[in-house]
């Protein structure tokens, strides 16, 4: 119902009157507010300014102490040590340069340290305490305490810092902590990291950061005008981080690292029954304590120099062609699919020709191995036998059989940055390179070269499956049942543990393992160097991954180090009831898998099974004579398709 225009006009006038009243009330209210503001900010300004200057109550975060890390026997691998540092709050220092001069008169303070301090002041937030000197010794702390009245705005801060008592040993699986970067700060829960300056960067330290870190506490403290704490009014203690126990055995880890010597490479030792990693060595090493003390530019450059990338954990991040170490798995596939029989023989004349290719594929031994059966082919690593086997097996059956051994998939170990290697297949090639699969590629990949690649840890997992006669395990580094242990989703999936590979003919396991024993025990076996006086039964396989075409031995000696082949060895012992699986990779080795990698593996198995270090000592003294092992079993000469 429309009301008359006259009524509308009356309404408008009425509402406007009320609007005017409301407007006036608003003005009065703002005037009242301003009066209060004037009272606070002008009349009582001096009072509040003094209160602000002497604001006595501060809330400080108490950083939690980081969880310790132990090896399987309870030996401490990472702990916390008290350390004193000098902090300065520039806003509270009347004359910064003069104060710095005064500090330099008391304790050591280099120009470089002052420079770094000034740079940090530029980047820091207002009223933030900035580190001026780290690692003060007791004497310096005492001197500063005596002169503290002359040093307003400076405070000595005692805090726990990370310490790795064994230095370079186990640096890769352990990882290290380092100063938080601005980027990391952005992704962290700021509340949980108040007062914390270090964060796990790599290894277990990085992967288990959440468990190791703990929760900060807080303290409400009364301070004087210079920010010095007079008394604590209220305190909520921090919750320390969880301790972690690793599956590593520090002693075996040391043996593994020493066995590699100065060469770069990796060693993995694990228990085949439960996948517990006993040693995870990677060379070159670094000292994780460097990152705690603060890394100077020179030290970092020294670390980077040479391009050997000591920070990379080669055991999980190095991908290498498995080369001949793939032969036990390919042989097993061929036995399973009845492509070969344990007694099948192939005549090796040093060459293997296929239709459509002028240049034949070659065996590493010129002139060939003659009549060779499965055991001899494995022991002497005959390429022609395995060319023939792979050719008749075909790529599809080969890759399908190798997949459950874990090739081409990360193991899911509790570390970040693990790589998954490549298991070649028709589908893989189509997806990644395009194009169809060639027959020649089957041959090359059948001896572990071509597109094939795997990390040492993947090789160890596959070897453990072999040692277990089909039972698949998940490698693990953090002992289960620990408070800090967390379930990590694994690439292999939770079903991998306990799952198994069933063969139609279970005897094929023993046939292959016997052939691997022959590699160690046979007088012509490629790993015969470590077979002498071996008090237990060891099954193994050598591999040499040729990186570049090297025609003559003489030239190989002179070839640039980086063009030399990688030497590999995988094995397990004792054969009947395996207790340890070992994988060794030596990058750019002098000599092949039998000469360069196998001795390191025996040093590890001797130490674990017999607690005997004599082989290691001989190896370190250079008394293992590898001149007898003439083979540098190479891949096919004549180029790869």
């Amino acid at each position, binding site marked *: 119902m429309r009301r008359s225009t006259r009524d509308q006009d009356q309404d408008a006038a009425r*509402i406007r009157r009320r609007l005017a009243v*409301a407007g006036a009330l608003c003005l009065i209210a703002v005037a009242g507010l301003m009066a209060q503001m004037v009272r606070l900010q002008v009349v009582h300004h001096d009072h509040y300014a003094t*209160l*602000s200057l002497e604001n006595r109550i501060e809330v400080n975060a108490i950083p939690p102490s980081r969880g310790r890390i132990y090896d399987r026997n309870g030996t401490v691998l990472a702990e916390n040590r008290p350390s004193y540092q000098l902090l300065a709050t520039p806003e509270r220092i009347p004359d910064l340069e003069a104060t710095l001069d005064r500090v330099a008169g008391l304790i050591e303070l280099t120009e470089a340290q002052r420079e770094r301090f000034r740079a940090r002041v530029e980047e820091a937030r207002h009223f933030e305490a900035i580190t001026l000197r780290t690692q003060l010794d007791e004497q310096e702390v005492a001197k500063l305490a005596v002169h503290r009245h002359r040093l307003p705005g400076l405070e000595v801060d005692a805090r726990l810092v990370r310490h790795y008592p064994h230095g370079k040993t186990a640096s890769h699986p352990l990882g290290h902590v380092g100063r938080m970067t601005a980027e990391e700060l952005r992704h962290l829960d700021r509340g949980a990291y108040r007062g914390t300056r270090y964060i796990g960067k790599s290894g277990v330290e990085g992967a288990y950061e959440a468990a190791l870190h703990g929760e900060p506490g807080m303290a409400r403290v009364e301070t004087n005008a210079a920010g010095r704490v007079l008394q604590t009014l209220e305190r909520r203690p921090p919750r320390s981080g969880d301790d972690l126990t690793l599956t590593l055995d520090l002693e075996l880890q040391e043996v593994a690292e020493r066995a590699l010597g100065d060469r770069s490479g990796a060693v993995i030792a694990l228990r085949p029954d439960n996948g517990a990693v006993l040693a995870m060595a990677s060379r070159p090493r670094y000292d994780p304590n460097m990152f705690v003390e603060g890394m100077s530019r020179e030290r970092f450059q020294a670390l980077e120099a040479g391009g050997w990338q000591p920070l990379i954990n080669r055991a999980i991040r190095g991908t290498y062609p498995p080369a001949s170490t793939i032969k036990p798995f390919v042989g097993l596939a061929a036995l399973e699919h009845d492509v070969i029989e344990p007694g099948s023989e192939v005549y090796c004349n040093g060459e293997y020709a296929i239709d459509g290719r002028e240049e034949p594929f070659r065996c590493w031994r010129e002139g060939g191995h003659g009549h060779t059966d499965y055991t001899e082919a494995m022991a002497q690593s005959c390429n022609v036998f395995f060319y023939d086997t792979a050719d008749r097996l075909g790529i599809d059956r080969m890759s399908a059989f190798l997949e459950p051994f874990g090739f081409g998939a990360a193991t899911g170990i509790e570390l970040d940055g693990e790589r998954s290697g490549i298991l070649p297949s028709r589908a893989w090639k189509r997806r990644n390179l395009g194009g169809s699969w060639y027959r020649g590629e089957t041959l090359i990949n059948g001896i572990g070269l071509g597109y094939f690649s795997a990390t040492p840890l993947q090789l160890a997992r596959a070897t453990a499956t072999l040692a277990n006669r089909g039972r698949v395990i998940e490698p693990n580094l953090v002992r289960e049942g620990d408070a800090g242990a967390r379930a990590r989703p694994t690439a292999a999936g939770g079903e991998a543990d306990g799952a198994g590979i069933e063969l139609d003919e279970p005897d094929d396991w023993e046939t292959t393992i016997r052939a691997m024993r022959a590699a160690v025990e046979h007088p012509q076996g490629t790993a015969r160097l470590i077979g002498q006086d071996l008090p237990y039964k060891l099954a193994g396989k050598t591999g040499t991954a040729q990186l570049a075409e090297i025609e003559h031995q003489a030239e190989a000696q002179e070839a640039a180090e980086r063009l030399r082949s990688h030497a590999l060895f995988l094995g397990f012992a004792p054969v009947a009831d395996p207790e340890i699986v070992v994988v060794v990779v030596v990058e750019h080795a002098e000599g092949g898998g039998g000469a360069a990698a196998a001795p390191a593996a025996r040093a590890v198995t001797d130490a674990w099974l017999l607690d005997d270090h004599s082989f290691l000592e001989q190896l370190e003294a250079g008394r293992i004579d590898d001149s007898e092992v003439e083979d540098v079993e190479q891949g096919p000469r004549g180029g790869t398709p």
Partner: protein
Amino acid sequence: MSTTALPNDRGVEVRLSFLQSRLHLDGLLLTALLAVTAFGVAVLYSAFGEDWAQTQQHLIRVSIGFLALLLCAQVPPRTLQRWAPWAFAGGLGLLLLVEALGLVAQGAQSWLDLGVTQFQPSEIMKLALPLMVAWLLADQELPPRPRQVLLALGIIGAPAALIALQPDLGTAVLVTASGLFVLFLAGLGWRWILGGLALAGATAPLLWFFVMRDYQRERVLTFLHPESEPLGAGYHLIQSKIALGSGGLFGKGWLNGSQAHLEFIPERHTDFVLAVVGEEFGLIGIAQLLAAYLLIVGRGLYIAAVAQDNFGRLLAGGIALTFFAYVLINAGMVSGLLPVVGLPLPLVSYGGSSLVTIMVGFGMLMAIHTHRRLWS
């Protein structure tokens, strides 16, 4: 600038600028809003301890707010009037839902989890209630008759009670005020107003003993005697006053407030952000900010005065006054004139949904102003 001339209800020309006729925006109001939000971003950057990432979060929310304003400005007031009852009914339904979920979860509950985002149904009420009361009174004879007044009081009381139960006292006060403002503008008799004030005074003790929760009582006590508990409930107020007072006439300068940066001021980026303003920009800064708020409110009241129908007048006036109440309650709380009730400072505080609500309100104001047309 092109202008469109229209005769207004008295036959006088209504001049609309290009901004007004095409984008349905009001230049003066928009400028003032932009100025205050920009100032707010600068203050928050300091309050966040110079954390750019968090400041960016705020910038995103401000942008969403202005987008909401732009969209709402396109909706003609007649459409708003048609939707008013539905908006109110929907808001009330959501409040009941939240209350029911709260009973299930056995605790304070004011959030509705939408999966993608959470929002508080009480935010809807801040606008739905003045819409509803304006809808109720717009086509009636003014001043409203007692029956209408009682009906309006019922409409105001229901959502306010539900919000107070959550318990969110600050928002409950604000929602109640938004409804009462419309009633006041409609010409509610002074006898009603005085009588209501007397009744409120009489029921205050009842509220104190039977309705208010412990922490709410504590806040009132703290307001009366802040120094009695310097480390407990009085801490907020003492530190806030120190921050304001130590700022003085000209302030300590942007990024230089020790109270703010040493984290003495609690809730310094939300409810107590005005203390950071006072510390770093001084009395001058506070005065300028309040002047900007007054300009915004004044423009809102002007828009209400020149609106073409009762619905537009009542709604525009109600929105402008609610905004003012927001500022007054927050500033009063920070400066120690009012008890701490937990309301953000509009357009400056960090906090997503209330910023969007405020911007939607200003979108409605602009719609009322720019959809004026020839009187039929």
